[in-house]
């Protein structure tokens, strides 16, 4: 039996191209690789900027010295290692996770406005955070991070459970609506608790804007395995997702196991979003914007969309974080707020300029 993946690839690729058509295909492949390189370069620049800029700006030389000198006691060394590096790493990891999760979510729901944060996961996390504060009296970040993770996982399980109970398995519409319904349910329960308890409200209103500062490196390291596993699952899921975007019936005829593919996709979304939301709070809109920009450049192939969306997600969160530090000096604007403020105009411009693609 020929492996499923090869059948799918064969079905997705056009008949052999010759002459001018072949040139076009080759040029497109070149363009995708070039785009990927440009994205990596931009991401590196954003990383450098994130370490260098802040309420005290450092020169590249100082940054370089500090990076090679972990135990240093000079002012620049302390700033880099205690403050800038941890938040840079966290912004990168969370951004990549949310970007990839957004692309997966849009692929599985076939809905262009799907986003892990719209579809219930972050609301589930928020409910458990507030529950931990309200019922158990947990007050510090380390206390409620695991509650957030648990909440996101529970919300994803609920959405997937509803999908799998449905006759014929989870369809894009069921997933999208189940997500929206659980988002509303969890938000309502959260609001119900927050209205009774001022302490919970105070925690919740700062948690819910999303932030990457104040989390040490060890904290990110604890969540990293989940994100790595999620990214691997996402990569494994991409060919199946390509087949699914032809429609479930076509995918099934091509030999794709639709239920299994959806389950793997949901697992990846859960791990990625759960870890990112637990670490930084619900940073909305990254997944949405990153996926749309990615699709703008790559076309419909999810193997490329996922890679682009991940890189773009990381860059977006880093840039938003840096700008949030720069515009409100010496204070700062939370990354979640900044992200929507700069992401929305870019996104709208993109939507305006382009003929819409149906998913």
């Amino acid at each position: 039996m020929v492996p499923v993946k090869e059948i799918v690839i064969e079905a997705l690729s056009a008949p052999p191209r010759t002459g001018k058509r072949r040139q076009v295909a080759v040029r497109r492949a070149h363009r995708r690789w070039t785009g990927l390189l440009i994205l990596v370069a931009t991401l590196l620049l954003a990383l450098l900027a994130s370490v260098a800029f802040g309420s005290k700006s450092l020169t590249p030389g100082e940054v370089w010295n500090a990076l090679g000198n972990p135990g240093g006691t000079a002012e620049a060394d302390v700033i880099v290692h205690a403050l800038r590096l941890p938040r840079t790493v966290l912004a990168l990891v969370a951004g990549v996770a949310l970007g990839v999760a957004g692309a997966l979510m849009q692929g599985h729901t076939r809905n262009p406005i799907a986003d892990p944060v719209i579809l219930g996961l972050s609301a589930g996390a928020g409910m458990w955070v507030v529950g931990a504060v309200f019922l158990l009296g947990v007050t510090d970040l380390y206390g409620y991070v695991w509650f957030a993770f648990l909440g996101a996982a529970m919300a994803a399980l609920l959405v997937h459970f509803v999908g799998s109970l449905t006759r014929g398995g989870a369809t894009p519409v069921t997933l999208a609506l189940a997500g929206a319904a659980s988002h509303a349910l969890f938000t309502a329960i959260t609001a119900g608790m927050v209205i009774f308890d001022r302490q919970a409200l105070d925690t919740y209103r700062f948690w819910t804007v999303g932030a990457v500062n104040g989390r040490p490196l060890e904290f990110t390291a604890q969540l990293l395995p989940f994100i790595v596993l999620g990214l691997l699952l996402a990569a494994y899921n991409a060919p199946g997702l390509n087949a699914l975007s032809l429609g479930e019936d076509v995918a099934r005829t091509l030999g794709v196991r639709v239920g299994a593919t959806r389950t793997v996709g949901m697992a990846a979304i859960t791990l990625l979003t759960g870890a990112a939301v637990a670490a930084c709070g619900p940073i909305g809109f990254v997944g949405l914007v990153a996926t749309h920009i990615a699709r703008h450049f790559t076309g419909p192939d999810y193997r490329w969309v996922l890679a682009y969306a991940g890189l773009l997600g990381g860059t977006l969160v880093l840039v938003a974080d840096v700008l949030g530090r720069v515009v409100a000096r010496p204070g700062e604007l939370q990354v979640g707020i900044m992200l929507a403020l700069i992401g929305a105009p870019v996104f709208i411009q993109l939507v305006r300029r382009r003929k819409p693609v149906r998913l």
Partner: protein
Amino acid sequence: MSPAPAAREAAAEPPAEPGRPDAAGHRPVKERSAVPRVPGRTPVRLGPLSAVWRPRTVLVPCAIALALCAAVVLNTGRGDFPLSPGDVLQALLGTADGVAELVVWELRLPRSVVGALVGASLGLAGAILQGIARNPLASPDILGITAGAGVGAVSVIVFAGANGAAGGLVGDVGIPTAAVTGGLAAALLVYVLAVRQGISGYRVLLVGVGVNAALTSVLSWLLVKADIVDAGRALIWLNGSLNGTNWDIAAPAAWALTLLLPAALLLSLQFGALAFDEDTARGLGVRMTGARAALLLTAVLLTAVATAATGPIAFVALACPQLALRLLRTGHPPLFASALLGAAVTVWADFLGRTLISGVELPVGIFTAALGAPYLLYLLVRSGKARTS
């Protein structure tokens, strides 16, 4: 719970529809007459209009209307001076004593009426938007209209609260005005950004999501900047509350609904065609841009007025059209039934929010979601993959 009787009814009715095409796609042909007929579907024709007679499209709205009436009577009886449903009915008919009549007409009834009006407006607006955008996730909440109203109202709460001086006056007069202004401004922004050689429902939706994200982040920023007391007040407004409603609040919502509901129903005659893609609809002779713009404007006005009356009531606009669609088993969200269902869900949510936990009045917006979400999940599980919109 309000929609439950309708659901039981739905389950009782035999699902077999002989007019449905069989597995191979052939329709069973039994008879030929001058007018082509689909067996099992009785056509109703009136001049140029034509529809299929389906008992479900009449019975389900009737059941919802009954549930709405029950909710209004129960909700009106509830309060510090409890009245039995019988007393309430007598007062409504004008045969009760003076005190009961005063309590019912002046104090209690406005609350239920405002709830019903706002719920109906939101349900209708949601059905219109979901029909135009052909997306089950479309709703005024996602298009930024609600967020715009929220930014308007919360900035009044926060800035007036911090200054202190203007608090009382601004609290009474300023919030609804600011909410309407904010909502309309957001809608205008979405429209200006989305219009480009005609309106595509798809582009409106995506631009709306963008505008919504930006406005929501402004809202979070306001909440973070605010004093904790103001943040609490803002949160209560943001969850939608029917506390302190009176006939003055009901009036604008009533006017909006009386004018816009017939308009929407009239415009909706083209609704079936809007559910196809652009080219097909244009081929059928529908003026897409005009029809869409008029329907959008209707939805925006309904949402803005409703939000100004009570604050944003979550989830009604998203869930009620989807619930109505599944209860009536239609192809696109039914407008009138969505409006009725919105009213019923909102009044029931208000009643339960005031009854379930004694001594505490939860904002109605919390219970609309707590009621609507599980029911929508249940319907999703039950109705399977047949529905695609």
